[in-house]
């Protein structure tokens, strides 16, 4: 059972994007950072455990060439082994900041090509990040998708040091599974079926993908086989999140519902299994972002289109 906690007010409402909530947990400092895209600006705020907002900051997309104000498409904290970067994306390019948003450390302009913005070619850009400082370098461009990329998920490769597995998803529903290394290698391709895949997660070799038709699919990352198909929502899924310690999966959709699932493997066959834990209705709200606020999945936060607050829930 979950109860509705005190909401955190936002300066601007959340935009109707997918994956429109990023959370950075800082348990050592008893703080949680939240990031939400409003439109031309993104709002960062930090809150104490009870949800009292402590500090807030707004970031804008870099203007660049062109006349219309750029809209931010995503704000996300990337937690690397030695550093945390805040990444802001827009059609103009990619901006990287120190984790509190105070300093921009890198800007990568996307070629706008012709006048139409968003000539999204489906390229995946790989950047080398040093432990400190702005010396970030574009090291690789992965070709594997033909339509715009919607989400990326990573986890350390099992039993291998300094190697990660990565899943990329796109607007056609195609999933690509990669392994990092001196160069990235494409391991598996999982074709789409006519709807976008706006959100993807990776946990212990299980790929969780949320689709535009409201379904959540669980695939075996090594083989690409579909093992679980959940008719989870009545509208397009807008966000997925994972609580790695507990193997909990959060799905949120435009149907106003948020569901929590428990992922596991059968002890005999080691096939992927899933169990429904909880469903929550966020009344009259088209949910556009959802994240667990702790790694055991005992609390989560949600943003909604036109909603100027972050709704929080915690288990009782």
């Amino acid at each position, binding site marked *: 059972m979950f109860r509705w906690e005190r909401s955190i007010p936002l300066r601007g409402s959340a935009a109707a994007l997918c994956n429109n909530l990023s959370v950075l947990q800082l348990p050592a400092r008893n703080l949680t950072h939240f990031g939400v895209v409003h439109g031309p600006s993104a709002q960062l705020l930090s809150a104490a455990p009870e949800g009292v907002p402590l500090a807030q900051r707004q970031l804008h997309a870099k203007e660049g060439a062109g006349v219309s104000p750029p809209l931010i498409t995503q704000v996300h904290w990337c937690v690397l082994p030695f550093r945390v970067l805040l990444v802001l994306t827009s059609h103009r390019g990619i901006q990287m900041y120190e984790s509190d948003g105070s300093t921009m450390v890198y800007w990568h302009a996307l070629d706008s090509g012709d006048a139409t913005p968003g000539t999204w070619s489906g390229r995946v850009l790989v950047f080398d990040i040093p432990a400190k400082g702005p010396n970030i370098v574009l090291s690789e461009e992965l070709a594997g998708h033909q339509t715009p990329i919607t989400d990326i998920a990573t986890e350390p490769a099992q039993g291998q040091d300094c190697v990660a597995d990565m899943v990329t998803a796109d607007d056609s529903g195609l999933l690509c599974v990669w392994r990092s290394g001196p160069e990235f290698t494409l391991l598996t391709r999982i074709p789409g079926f*006519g709807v976008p895949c706006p959100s993807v997660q990776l946990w212990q070799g299980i790929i969780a993908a949320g689709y535009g038709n409201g379904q959540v699919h669980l695939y075996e990352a090594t083989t690409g086989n579909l093992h679980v*198909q959940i008719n989870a929502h009545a509208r397009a899924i807008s966000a997925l999140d994972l609580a790695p310690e507990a193997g909990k999966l959060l799905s949120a959709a435009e*149907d106003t519902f948020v569901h929590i699932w428990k992922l596991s493997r059968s002890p005999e066959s080691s096939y992927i299994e899933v169990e429904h834990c909880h469903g929550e209705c966020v009344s009259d709200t088209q949910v556009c972002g959802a994240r667990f606020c702790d790694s055991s999945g005992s609390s989560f936060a949600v943003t909604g289109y036109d909603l100027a607050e972050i709704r929080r829930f915690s288990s009782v």
Partner: protein
Amino acid sequence: MSVRTLPLLFLNLGGEMLYILDQRLRAQNIPGDKARRVLNDIISTMFNRKFMEELFKPQELYSKKALRTIYERLAHASIMKLNQASMDKQLYDLMTMAFKYQVLLCPRPKDVLLVTFNHLDTIKGFIRDSPTILQQVDETFRQLIEIYGGLSAGEFQLIRQTLLIFFQDLHIRVSMFLKDKVQNNNGRFVLPVSGPVPWGTELPGLIRMFNNKGEEVTRIEFKHGGNYVRAPKEGSFELYGDRVLKLGTNMYSANRPVETHMSGSSKNVASWAQESIAPNPLAKEELNFLARLMGGMEIKKPSGPEPGFRLNLFTSDEEEEQAALTRPEELSYEVINIQATQDQQRSEELARIMGEFEITEQPSLSTSKGDDLLAMMDEL
């Protein structure tokens, strides 16, 4: 965001405007031939070929202010006169909230095309006695089918997101929506958790698990919290057909008064005012856009001695005056002042000047040229 959104936005908002005008014309007992003339004039201006050509070019959405100017222009493309307060307080608010509601409630992103077709189907009903205008509308219909018929689900999702960003933070309370309980008192729309699922979506509540060979080994049901049923059938995307979806059909019957409640009105009005006063760095680009679009608008001069008439959008003259009085100063925008009668020569002049701009095509227009255009528009 999507560069294919403008035609859908324009046609649906235009459709809502026509529904409202049609209802008011009937409610105020405007003689049938005059009423038909008004609608015919506006529809034929809206679907003018050159205008449609400009509209369908891939481009970003412009601001609400720029779009409102087009509709004001359109509304005056006939013998009917509306005062400024009527235009933005009543008509534009209603149009935008109605289409926002329709977009939000579309089961699938692609269904916004069905909503557009519903508007066009009704528009064709208004002008069924005028074969020339009918042909114009059908032409646009075919263009829509050609351009949007083949778009992917992902592209429609992007169009939907672009539209929702355009409508973000608009919470004007509409008395008809409040009465029908589709809008809450705080201005937000009710999102029902019952009814048919979108075409192509399964009923939520089922988990299926498969083995390595893809064979189903278990089925489990779970409680999903809603009360959904299967979609009966898919709406038609052809020129003629059952659209199935009711969103976008004419919800104004002859008996319903058309009112907009602006309670907490200072809050609502303030948000429009803020949008208008804040210096708009897009002003020049938007003027270019407007000049291009209106260059393509062929305005028929009112022929003969036929007098114009005033249409009240409020229920009485007194309320019209009241609205004019309570309208804050900031909303009387002076940037663009286009009179109801614009002659052919001027629009050609506009188009020619815009042609000159196209050739230079630098992102930063030289200040003097921009000022010339602004000055020219002020003189109209």
